[in-house]
């Protein structure tokens, strides 16, 4: 970014235990995934079927999130 100096760059990874319902909400919070899952599960509202399938899957369910951060500071007057 023009006029800014990079001050911090970092990365981290965290593991988040989630329930089947949490995971279903997370997956359906993206439009492209929502459409894909709705088509795959043949349902206008794919949440109930997705939740059921995820609940029948292996446990524990963990989402591994990789976090990236960069901080810049504005220079000049």
């Amino acid at each position: 970014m023009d006029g800014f100096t990079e001050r911090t760059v970092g990365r981290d990874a965290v593991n988040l235990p989630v329930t089947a319902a949490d995971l279903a909400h997370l997956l359906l919070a993206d439009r492209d995934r929502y459409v894909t899952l709705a088509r795959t599960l043949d349902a206008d509202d794919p949440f109930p079927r997705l939740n059921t399938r995820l609940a029948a899957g292996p446990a524990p369910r963990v989402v591994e999130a990789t976090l990236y951060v960069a901080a810049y500071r504005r220079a000049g007057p």
Partner: protein
Amino acid sequence: MPTDSGHRPRLIRPSYRFGTPAAHSATPLPRRVPAFFSSPLRSIVTDPFPQAVAAHHAAYRPSLHDRILAPVLDDRGPFDVGLDVGCGTGRSAVALAAHCTRVQGVDPSPAMLAQATAHDRITYREGNAEALPLPARSVDVVTYAGVLPTSTGPPRLMSSGGYAGPERSSSRMTSNSTSRTYWRPWTSTCRRRPRTTTTPRPFRAWTASRSAPSAATPSTSR
């Protein structure tokens, strides 16, 4: 929508709109169309910010913003005015509010803002960051939760010495994984920004309706 603090989020709607339904949504469909085009799924495909997606976004979102902001801003704040670009349902704005006296959250999606978390020190605005009616250099810290590549406006708003903290996360699902942490050492050369200022802040003019800052900051946990 009921919220943690029992009141609706404060939302300012501009005269311009973004993300309105496609113009052809009111056009009658031809008699013979594939099932998809006559299903509710069609509106999700054509609407850039579908309400169904926003509802799932609000229903569960991991509290990652606190983890990201705390190491970066703890030793540099507190700040007076914060701006969260692409605030969505407000999770990132609430995380930023822990470091600011007041926060503006801006997002182009009415569906997302309809699900926003109410907070005494946050005002939500519908629109895009490039069109924010704010004076130049009136913001002390700007955060982008994964939307930096699509935003170019806020730098002009930042005060000298202000911080911009673009952040993003990617995730993958595992059934069994080991944790690993490797933060790079944060630079410690940044000067702490003083909270007091000798110049009036016109920014307050359009946030005059905000409530008094509360001592407690609502948690971003679901």
